[in-house]
């Protein structure tokens, strides 16, 4: 409106109690009409100071903490921490353990991306239908987790040196069934959403992220890849046997919300490919090496990282030869992916801000740790 029509901007609180902030997370938005002038994030509502607690527990006792930071990707978190400690203590994992770890991490990526894709479609306004579909598929994966590790969400399945339990005979048919009906489900989602005119109108060109801004703001994961940067830790720094599997990285075109959506869909397809290859070539032998309960790794530090569903999930562990880590730091992909949120939302409308927040796919447990 022209300057004669003076409408003074006012502060609007999106969150902490808001239907689409995916958890307890607040964005204080300075708004002039529908246009956003400034966005400021307020967080810390879920801060349990896991890094302080971890300093007082042995390396094995810290594994359940890693489940609870990013409660939507507990397997990937376990894998990250366990790799860091093994790198620190110089423990090697048997073939079977590595293969099981890869299968579990990729299944967890499928489940987490289902959640991300469904929640994003829900933010653009598709009233619950995509969420219900993706949750139906996610349930099947959670059943597998419950069967193998005992818990659906916080599995606590991986141990230093391997995995907690070996796979049960029913594991293989269940995973085969999932691999059979996931690709058609992704086709169905694409027909319903990617091809849908309204969905494209709501997400193409919204929250565009330039490659320089993405790199400079140290983003990672689908958000970075949608900006056109082909960087995936599984390919760049293969861990736990990823170099054996043949798969591709999905890279977007112009870094907007639509690209993040299609990158996640493509990653789900690639995960299915990996799981199939890992399952076919599942080696026999022990599923983990014996590690003393109060492991005392040699003094030193290690930074190991894993390609989690939300991005590069790093664990920086410093040991002083004591049974407990001297310093335990988690590199939270959701927390760091938010550093570009302010620049993207300024200038867009309130409705777009919600869609952008949904496309970045944050988990508040991981932000506040």
């Amino acid at each position, binding site marked *: 409106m022209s300057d004669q029509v003076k409408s003074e901007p*006012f502060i*609007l*609180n999106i969150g902490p109690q808001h*239907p*689409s902030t995916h958890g307890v997370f607040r964005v204080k938005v300075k708004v002039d009409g*529908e246009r956003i002038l400034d966005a400021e994030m307020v967080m810390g509502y879920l801060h349990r100071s896991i890094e302080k607690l971890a300093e007082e527990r042995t390396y094995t006792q810290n594994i359940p903490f890693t489940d609870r930071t990013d409660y939507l990707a507990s397997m990937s978190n376990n894998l990250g921490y366990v790799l860091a400690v093994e790198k620190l203590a110089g423990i090697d994992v048997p073939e079977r353990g590595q293969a099981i770890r890869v299968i579990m991490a990729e299944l967890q990526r499928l489940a987490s991306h289902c959640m991300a894709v469904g929640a994003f*479609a*829900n*933010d*653009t*306004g*598709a*009233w*619950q*239908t995509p969420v*219900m*579909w993706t949750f*139906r598929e996610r349930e099947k994966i959670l059943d597998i987790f419950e069967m193998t590790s005992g818990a659906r969400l916080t599995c606590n399945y991986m141990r230093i040196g391997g995995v907690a339990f070996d796979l049960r005979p029913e594991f293989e048919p269940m995973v085969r069934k999932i691999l059979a009906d996931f690709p058609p489900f992704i086709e169905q989602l*694409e027909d*319903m*959403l*990617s*091809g*849908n005119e*309204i*969905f*494209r*109108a*709501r997400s*193409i060109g919204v929250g565009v992220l330039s*490659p320089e801004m993405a*790199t400079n703001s140290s983003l990672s994961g689908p958000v970075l*890849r*949608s900006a*056109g*940067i*082909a*960087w*995936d*830790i599984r*390919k*760049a720094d293969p861990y736990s046997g990823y170099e054996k599997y043949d798969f*591709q*990285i*999905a*890279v*977007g*075109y*112009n870094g907007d919300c*639509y*690209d993040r959506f*299609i*990158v996640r869909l*493509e990653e789900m397809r690639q995960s299915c490919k990996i799981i199939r290859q890992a399952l076919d070539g599942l080696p026999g032998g022990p599923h983990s090496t014996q590690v003393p309960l109060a492991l005392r790794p040699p003094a030193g530090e290690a930074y190991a990282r894993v390609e989690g569903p939300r991005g590069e999930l790093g664990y920086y562990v410093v040991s002083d030869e004591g049974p407990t880590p001297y310093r335990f730091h988690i590199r939270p992909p959701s927390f760091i992916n938010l550093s570009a949120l302010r620049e993207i939302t300024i200038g867009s*409308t*309130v*409705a*777009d801000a*919600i869609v952008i927040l*949904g496309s970045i796919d944050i988990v508040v447990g991981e932000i506040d740790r």
Partner: protein
Amino acid sequence: MTLLVFLASKNWYDIRDLSNISRVILEGLDRFLPSGIVYVVAVLLGFVASFLIFVLPSQLIVGVYGERKIIGRMQSRLGPNRVGPKGLLQPIADAIKLMQKEALTPKFADKAVMWVAPIIFVAPCVLLFAVIPFGPNMIIADIPVALLYFLAVSSIPVLAAFMAGWSANNKYSLYGAMRIVAMTISYEVPLVMALMGVVLFTGTLSLQEMVLWQKSNDIWVVFLQPLAFAIYFICVSAELNRTPTDIAEAESEIVAGYLTEYSGMKWGLFYGMDIGYAIAASAFAATVFLGGWSFFGLDKYIPPWAIFIAKTHLFYFLFIWTRGTLPRLRLDQLMTFAWKFMLPVALINLVVVATERMLWQELTDGKLTQGYLYLFAIVNIAMAVAIVYAWARMLGYSPKDETPMRPRLFNDARGYVPVVSEKGGR
């Protein structure tokens, strides 16, 4: 004894036309009541009949229960099946639950306006059904300007929504209020244009005569003017803010829009009447576009009001379908869509229909025979598709949208990979 004779004489048992029953009751009452009162009773009886037989069951059964069941099915889940046999008592359970919930009023809210808003939101919904014909002579008020009456009454709930939004003294509800007003104004204009196209052919504004015209000419207006039907559907779903245009109470963006501060039965009224208006709009669409209670002569055997109710629920299914599947448009996209696309297309449609009406007048030199209508129908269907496509191309929509649906794929990790011109990747 006189009662038996009295009852035998009037064919009240003929359920095809419920007006016989009402006539019998009225004549019976006329004997006991003073002279003038029977008209008031007739109107009351009309309202009670139409409301109880048609609105309440279809609103509860189809609106609350049916919608949740169908949307549940679309989302691969069951939908309500706990309360009562197969979940049929769910609407009543909702109503009772809402009844005993506390209706909060924020401290600095405008209490008077906040209390009045639901009432003004509810009243017009019942008024709408006075004009809609359920059968040959089953209509409460056959006024000659029924169409305009419908438009007039359907513009009042917008004010009620605005009052609710403004008086709740909450930022989100203020957003909802401003959004609903802006959207309704811009979607009322194409709606009126589309309905003008219909009136050109039927020649009357009264709904009963429209149905009779469609019955006598054995053609439904929806075949005659598909474009008007499409515009009507989009505009009405925008005004009732149902998806894909439910931005006034967009759950994911502004919590619940103008309904944020409402709770208990006040919210229940808004929610119930949302469905009531949707049914009123589909009833109106059924009469104007789908030939009301006539079914190409079959209405002599099937009760006309049954045909009419079936058509209303058919149209209402369209609302449920879009609500279950489509995402939501942004406010500015909706505005540009209304003013840049809907209005011009409606105007073109009006021009074409007017020329057809002139042709019809000349060719049949006044007798307006039925044959030409089928010709016009075919021409109109082709014209509808042509106009929509041509105008969209004119506005810059290119079918081969350049953003592909699949990302690029690479085998190894590397830094930034610029998009090559031929759309890279697979």
